[in-house]
């Protein structure tokens, strides 16, 4: 038996929605440098027939392990075309369930993908001057705090990454 389930390997072998979106409506950047994963999630927002905002297009870039790559890919397929409201409701447990069997130590990678999406939508809400619920603000603060702590622990790495991104 292989370390990862067929479902994980399917997304790992042919990840869906890989790449960048030029001039995205929203961008979520998260990184768990403890284990070396960095995720960028790009969104293009549109409207559905009933006028609700939906994720019209979604693309991702991930530097990381098998589960990190597979998770971001899976999440993009789950939320593409969905309303922002629905997208925000997806949890790490939903991802783990779809993957059937994820080693316990890799569950945090699922949370990272969820954080990337949540941060992207937060970015969009901020840009549009939308009201942000206290719950959503708390979620954003937590992701930001993790980022800050990691920045503190691995300052040189983060700086290198930022520097590379400016180029």
């Amino acid at each position, binding site marked *: 038996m292989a370390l990862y389930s067929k479902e994980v390997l399917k997304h790992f072998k042919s990840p869906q929605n*890989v790449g*960048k979106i030029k001039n995205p409506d929203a961008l979520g950047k998260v990184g768990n440098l403890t284990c070396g994963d960095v995720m960028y999630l790009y969104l293009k927002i549109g409207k559905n027939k009933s006028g609700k905002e939906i994720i019209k297009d979604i693309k991702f870039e991930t*530097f990381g392990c*098998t589960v990190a790559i597979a998770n971001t890919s899976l999440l993009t397929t789950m939320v593409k075309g969905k309303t922002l409201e629905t997208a925000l409701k997806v949890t790490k447990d939903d991802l783990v369930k779809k993957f059937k069997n994820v080693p316990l130590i890799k569950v945090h990678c699922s949370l990272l993908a969820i954080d990337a999406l949540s941060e992207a939508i937060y970015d969009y809400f901020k840009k549009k001057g939308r009201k942000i619920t206290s719950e959503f603000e708390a979620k954003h603060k937590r992701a930001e705090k993790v980022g800050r702590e990691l920045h503190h622990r691995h300052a040189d790495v983060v700086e*290198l990454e930022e520097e590379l991104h400016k180029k």
Partner: protein
Amino acid sequence: MKSIYLDYAATTPLDKKVLKVIEPYFSRKFGNTMSLHLFGQEAKTAIENSRKIVASFINAGANEIIFTGSATESNNFVLKGLGLPGKHIVISSIEHPCIDESARWLEKQGVKVTRLPVDKHGMINPEDVKKAIRPETILVSVIHASNEIGTIQPIAEIGKICREKHVYFHTDAVQSFGKIPIDVKKLNIDLLTASSHKIYGPKGAGLLYIREGIKPVPLLHGGGQENGLRGSTVNVPAVVGFAKAVEICKVGMAKESKRFNKLREKLVKGLLKIKGSHLNGSPKNSVPNIVNVRFDFVEGESLIIQLDLHGIACSTGSACSSASLEPSHVLMATGLKPQEAHGSLRVSLGRFTKETDIDYLLRILPGIVENLRKISPFKNSYKF
């Protein structure tokens, strides 16, 4: 699908000749070495013959060898059996976890531990050993060849310093034993650890060479086996197999080493042709069967799983592959940054590695590296 094993530093398959020799010891020759009857004495004779074989392989006396259940046990025994409270021990910063974690445990018991730094090739400076030794130092333990990067330490020099300072010198020789010649007298070694399953013997047998006169406190108190130093009914098939594996190494080691050197050269050359690749460890001072490289902006765990999907088995020092989610302490000790250690790949060759296996790896790997970089957010910022 192809099935190519290039992870011989992790473990090796049993040599068929070994399997043949050990089979009777599971059934017909099943005696307990401590029994007085013929069944027991037959087993005892087999163990004592095995002891002579492995002892002569490293130029030791048979009375200086004890068999253990694993190299981890041997290493625990040395550190815990000599590192008594109030004492000081010296280890390197690139030891196998079974030394490093034992030392960590000893620190909690009031033992002082010094960890020696290494240079970018993973080499210890013997002068640092000299400086680290204090009046209460009892033991210096340095890994002979690194299990991760293959670097061979200057253990003869380190051993000489220890002799002069009247400090015991132990080396964990798991990766060098059976790969390069070892003479405990010439190398000034007081204690040495080796393992059976790394040299095509069965799992479940290790050895510890203890120079005559040294008396570590036993780890396993019991029925007086192994000269009272290791209680436990002896695992006769594993020990007999270990000795047979040693015999095979003795005959073929020089030729095998030559073959590995050729394969390694080809492998390193091919790997370093991949853009953004670097050799980890020492270009010259390495065991002939271990190669460790890293690829910029590639995550090692993903790399290993991709190779696995192509039928190639290798290993990595990436944090994502470890239980602790921390990058390899060995690569970090050589001065690499976490993001560099994440992209490491260890390829280890063995007796059954063919040149065509290396060719296949070199054909498949560049595409995998490229694909992983394509997914990464760094693809535009990192130009090759």
